């Protein structure tokens, strides 16, 4: 039956006609993508509010009477978990993966739409369980987003009654949801492309999402297993992660478990997770830069292999998160080496992005602003990664604000930059209306400059030795008074950046309501999703006939061609080959 759905067809087949099948229990990948997007952004706003509460506490201690160390740790934990998993992973893969894969590959839908729908509803369930943890006795867990045992499940840690259990259960549910979606994404990319769409003609967005999904399918199992084992430790008293220890003056019943095992399992998931978030961003930003610089992406094949190489390497670097846990020096040496090797394919990508811009016809419109902003934040975050990848440099910096600055720059802000670029870029296709340019530019500049105002000083604080995850600093000799001033500045910048996100929400609402109508290809882009007969694309995407692809995704400014772009579904013209460099589009 699945085969019928993808073939050419000249009549409508089972199109959903009621409100419920169209918008609620929808099996259409585009609707599911929007559902994922709305929930992810909604839950992301909660995480944003939590981060503001934390910042206010650090910059202006004792501002709120409800702010206690107990709450502070709950906010730290939930903020981190939401941002990494429920926002970034869900929005890149569930949102953009769902929207772009079938459209960019020339498919009518995902291969198993029903499972795709289940994936969203199970994801929603995981979000509900996560949020519910705030309302149970003891509240959400305050173990830090890494949930390290033994403290995560010992009395005295916030939420050690119910919060930690709900968090682990929510993660397990999320992994089930991700697996259902992820199997769909991978199978669709591998098996359901339209005629002519070879793997080496796919836009880099699809490559990034594809490899990231494979990483997810192989890395989430470790988190799943760790979550099960920790739930058992907490609920029925097994001792997988729990050694014999003294807590609150009493010995525990546990004996012989290995807390380090949890760290290994967690980071075997956790490091690939960084790339689950980063690879889709790499892919999408390549497409944005190429489209808006009106130039083919520099070194397409190298970009693809770099994505694959980064994906493979990401499985052998995890213990660089554990230098301070103590390990055999040879292990440290090994993981430091692999970590620094990852810089090679990553640097290739950065050079290629810059070379794509080099002498391009750069249109500084909204998506392009965010894409170039990403290059800046990513380089800065990446460079501090080289510090932290080395064992001896990492040891003094690991528990300081330097690390906060590093990972927010490289895997927080950078992917978010791409997300905003992607939202502005595909907004006309998704909604049929153009986003407001002025509001978007205000949003960009406030966010971009605010980011630096927030995170650059954190590197300085880190080098001072200011420890992270502290509720209050009190009187400490090695922290000068000026550090408090810096912290106040950071907090004010954070408030400004958060306000900018309200501008974004307002922009989305305004553009949906009164935005200029978009034609089907406002950016004059080459990829297939801009060549649909309807905007926004209707159920089945392509009308009666599937597209056929004749060239790669980056035919911008082809010499001798009148228009400065040739869509992927345009046949090769007679004599065109001889105009091209190195036959890049022939394959």
């Amino acid at each position: 039956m699945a085969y019928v759905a993808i073939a050419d067809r000249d009549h409508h087949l089972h199109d959903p006609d009621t409100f419920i099948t169209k918008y609620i229990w929808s099996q259409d990948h585009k609707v599911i993508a929007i559902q994922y997007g709305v929930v992810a952004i909604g839950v992301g706003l909660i995480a944003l509010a939590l981060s503001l509460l934390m910042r206010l506490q650090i910059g202006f201690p004792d501002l709120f009477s409800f702010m206690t160390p107990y709450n502070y740790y709950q906010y730290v934990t939930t903020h981190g978990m939401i941002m990494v998993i429920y926002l970034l992973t869900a929005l890149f893969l569930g949102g953009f993966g769902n929207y772009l894969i079938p459209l960019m590959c020339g498919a009518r839908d995902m291969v198993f739409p029903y499972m795709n729908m289940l994936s969203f509803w199970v994801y929603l369930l995981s979000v509900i369980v996560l949020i519910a943890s705030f309302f149970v006795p003891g509240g959400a867990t305050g173990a830090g987003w890494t949930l390290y045992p033994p403290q995560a499940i010992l009395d005295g840690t916030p939420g050690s009654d119910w919060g930690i259990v709900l968090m682990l259960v929510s993660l397990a549910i999320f992994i089930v949801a991700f697996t259902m979606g992820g199997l769909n994404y991978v199978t669709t990319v591998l098996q359901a492309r339209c005629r002519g769409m070879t793997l080496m003609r796919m836009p880099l967005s699809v490559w990034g999402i594809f490899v990231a999904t494979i990483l997810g399918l192989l890395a989430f199992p470790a988190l799943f297993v760790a979550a099960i084992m920790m739930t058992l430790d907490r609920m029925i008293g097994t001792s997988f992660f729990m050694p014999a220890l003294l807590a609150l003056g009493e010995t525990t019943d546990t004996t012989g478990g290995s807390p380090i095992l949890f760290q290994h399992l967690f980071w075997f998931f956790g490091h690939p997770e960084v790339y689950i978030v980063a690879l889709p961003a790499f892919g999408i930003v390549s497409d944005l830069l190429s489209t808006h610089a009106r130039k083919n992406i520099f070194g397409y094949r190298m970009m693809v292999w770099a994505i694959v190489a980064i994906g493979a390497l990401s499985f052998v670097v995890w213990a660089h998160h554990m230098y301070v846990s103590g390990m055999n020096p040879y292990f440290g040496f090994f993981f430091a080496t692999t970590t620094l090797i990852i810089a090679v394919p990553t640097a290739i990508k950065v050079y290629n992005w810059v070379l794509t811009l080099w002498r391009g016809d750069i249109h500084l419109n909204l998506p392009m602003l965010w894409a170039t902003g990403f290059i800046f934040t990513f380089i800065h975050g990446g460079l501090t990664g080289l510090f932290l990848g080395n064992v001896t440099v990492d040891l003094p910096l690991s528990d300081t604000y330097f690390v906060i600055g590093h990972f927010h720059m490289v895997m927080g802000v950078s992917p978010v930059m791409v997300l905003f670029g992607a939202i502005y870029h595909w907004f006309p296709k998704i909604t049929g209306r153009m986003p407001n340019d002025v509001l978007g530019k205000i949003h960009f500049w406030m966010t971009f400059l605010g980011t630096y105002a927030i995170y650059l000083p954190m590197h300085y604080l880190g080098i001072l030795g200011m420890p992270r995850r502290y509720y209050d600093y009190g009187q400490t000799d090695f922290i000068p008074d000026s550090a408090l001033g810096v912290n106040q500045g950071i907090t004010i910048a954070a408030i400004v950046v958060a306000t900018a996100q309200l501008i974004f929400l307002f922009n989305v609402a305004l553009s949906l309501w009164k935005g200029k109508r978009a034609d089907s290809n406002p950016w004059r882009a080459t990829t297939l999703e801009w060549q649909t007969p309807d905007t926004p694309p209707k159920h089945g995407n392509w009308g009666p006939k599937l597209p056929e692809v004749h060239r790669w995704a980056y035919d911008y400014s082809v010499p001798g061609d009148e228009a400065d772009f040739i869509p992927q579904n345009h046949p090769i013209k007679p004599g065109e080959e001889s105009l091209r460099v190195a036959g890049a589009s022939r394959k």
Partner: protein
Amino acid sequence: MAQEGMNPAADALPPEGWRGIVDDWATDKQAFHVPWGKAMMWIFLLSDTFIFTTFLTGYMNVRMSTAVEWPNPSEVFALSIFGQPIPLILIAIMTFVLITSSGTMALAVNYGYRRDRYRAAALMFVTAAFGAIFVGMQAFEWTKLIEEGVRPWANPMGASQFGASFFKITGFHGLHVSAGVVYLAVGALKVLRGDYERRGGNYEIVEITGLYWHFVDLVWVFIFAFFYLW
């Protein structure tokens, strides 16, 4: 390169070596010439492999790190038959049953390809029955250990991680077998009812079910080796 592109003969020759392999795999429409469901099952099993691998490495890690002595599996899992303790006899029978079920599954796949739906369905039911017997014996084994005082949180014979790992790993595998039994039974019913005749006699579902079943068997072989024989 540009000149090559102009020459039709150059296009006709498939590239060789690594380039050829990459090109083969990267052709348009599909990378593997198999149905979607089968491709998806393969990818799912790859993901599931990582789950069991993590379970087993986690178990090996706690087994090596715990300070208390690990019980000897050949003694723990021995059954007394006619007053004579035979090590691992129940596990041996369970393994034999599960391997046999893989054989009947393979036969079912074979008859599925021949579109002999009655034989295929019958063999699927037999496979499911073997699976149910396996789970039954596992329940017996659990009961025996629980009666001897082994719990996930405590173990009179030594390290408490022994009980924890045992119940966790065999439990998770047992869930997989039970799910497989249901999956097989539902699949067999649909095959028997002729659902797939209406879809042009396409019995690939038998093979997809079979992939899952063989995987669950294979996992058991590893559990057998790493938990019972070590």
